[in-house]
């Protein structure tokens, strides 16, 4: 434990760099969020513990935790929190900070899928569901990808029959009209957010 690094200004950092992070200090450690979380038993750290770790300045431990990536946004914690902390939002904010700082756990499925979704969406301004599914199936290599695709075959066929999945999307797919304008907007939005959150 002697190598553990404490950053006494980590709470300040969270207040500045995480959306609604200023509410972390309002936590009174009652634990009703942790007890109410349907995913609770499967996390490294329940929200209440994560908030205490933030205050204790355990920066690396917090940002490399898998907890915030496990949040399913059910909002049970927000509903029950006696101090009305926006716990779900803080979880997502912490996950984003962790990713930008390169501390998110490697190979965390939610993190990986999030990146895939973002790349897929921002490329042409539309989500190409066929390509998104394929990139998810094949993320762990070709062999596993074929297995995944075979397992999901009937679902894919059903979607195709119902007209919900177009196989021709593999050839480029549909796009928005002003792609360059869309990319310029995203770039600007990111600049603004990065400046505000000191993420650049």
């Amino acid at each position, binding site marked *: 434990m002697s190598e553990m690094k404490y950053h006494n200004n980590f709470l300040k950092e969270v207040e500045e760099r995480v959306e609604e992070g200023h509410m972390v200090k309002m936590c*009174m*450690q*009652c*634990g*009703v969020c*942790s*007890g*109410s979380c349907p995913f*609770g*038993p499967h996390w490294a*750290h*329940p929200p*209440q*513990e994560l908030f205490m770790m933030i205050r204790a300045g355990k920066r690396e431990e917090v940002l490399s935790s898998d907890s915030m990536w496990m949040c399913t946004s059910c909002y049970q914690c927000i*509903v*029950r*929190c*006696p*101090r*009305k902390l926006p716990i779900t939002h803080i979880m997502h904010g912490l996950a984003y900070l962790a990713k930008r700082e390169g501390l998110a756990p490697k190979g965390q499925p939610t993190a990986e899928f999030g990146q895939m979704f973002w790349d897929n969406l921002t490329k042409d301004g539309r989500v190409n569901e066929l390509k998104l599914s394929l990139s998810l199936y094949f993320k762990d290599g070709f062999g596993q990808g074929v297995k995944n695709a075979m397992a999901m075959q009937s679902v894919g066929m059903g979607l195709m029959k119902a007209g919900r999945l177009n196989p021709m999307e593999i050839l480029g797919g549909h796009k928005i009209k002003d792609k360059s304008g869309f990319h310029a907007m995203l770039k600007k939005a990111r600049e603004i957010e990065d400046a505000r959150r000191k993420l650049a």
Partner: protein
Amino acid sequence: MTEVVATNQTILVVGGGISGMTAALEAAECGKDVVLVEKNPVLGGRVSQLYRYFPKMCHPVCGLEINQRRTKMNPRIRVLTMAEVTGISGQKGDYTATVKISPRYVNENCTACGECAKAAETDIDDAFNYNLGKVKAAFLPHKMAYPQRYVVAPSVVGTPEGDKIKAACKYGAIDFGMQEETLQLKAGAIVWATGWKPYDAAKIQPYGYDRFSNVITNVEFERLADPHGPTGGKILRPSDGKEAKNVAFIQCAGSRDENHLRHCSRFCCTASLKQTQYVREKFGDEAQSTVYYIDIRAIDRFEDFYAKVRADQSVKFVKSKVAKIVQDEKTGDVVLHGVDTEGYHRYANTHDLVVLAVGMDPEVQGAQVPAEVAADASGFLVSGDANGGIFGAGCATNALDVNRAVQSATASALRAIQVINKVASVEG
């Protein structure tokens, strides 16, 4: 028709609980005329429904008896029961209050012999025991009732049962001719001491007070422990009447919660500590109490009491706000789910009975007081010049324990006396 003599030199005290009684007595014993108005058929309020006081574990009936005697002996206090103040007009030094008096159907001839109750057949909810039991339609609210006079429920008026009740009374005390009355009373100052009510536990959805029979409130637990309560002082759980030796206490049930009561109700921590000692008293070494808490707020000298309870082997403390309660339909046992703060351990603990330490809600919200008075976000009265000659007392002003409520009542009596003295100096 009820005759009441009241002038601009009279102090009107609204609410006959421990605070209202105290304010009325303090003012009357200083030589002021007092009208004490109480909504229920008897004085004493919620204090009379307690089994014991903290921290000395003495019986509230003791102090209540003294206050009742002081009230009875003092000719300056006029007590109106089953009476509600519905309107207040005028200003400091010159108020007129409208008081609605509901019929009791029993007059002052009553000797409390109890023959009417024997003649009654219908059972009605026993409000004194928080509806945990039943009483006959002709009843004495509780053993130490003041005034010591029976009440007949309106539901039997004009029925053959009502006739039987009337016939059973040897003293001509049953009077079905009584009607609802409305009086106009003068007063120079008003002490508003309408007290508190337990927060509606059914609103705390994950605790299932409205779904699970073995989830009860702290005020109901007082009645279970009291020898004059519905179980004769045995701690029996509602689902199957089994002795509840393993009892969980959940603190901040509603209090300190933005979704329920914003304030800390102050008394509930010490009250639960006290109630663990009821379990200890009834079951000895077999007793098991577990207190689930955010932090124990045993204010000032109650710290000693906390330390004493903490040393009791039968009492465990779990630092955690319980997330959810489930009652096993077959066994009736209740399971508490949550994560503790000392190590973040996930638990699912089984208990015989759960007691929710519900907080204090003002019995009458500030906005419902029929006069211009200032109140805070929780509905408690706030003192200030804008209130004129109306002074809040006791739990109408804040979540207080009995000791602090009495202090508050004495203070309000002094303020009311000052107003009356001013009126007297002008009127001569």
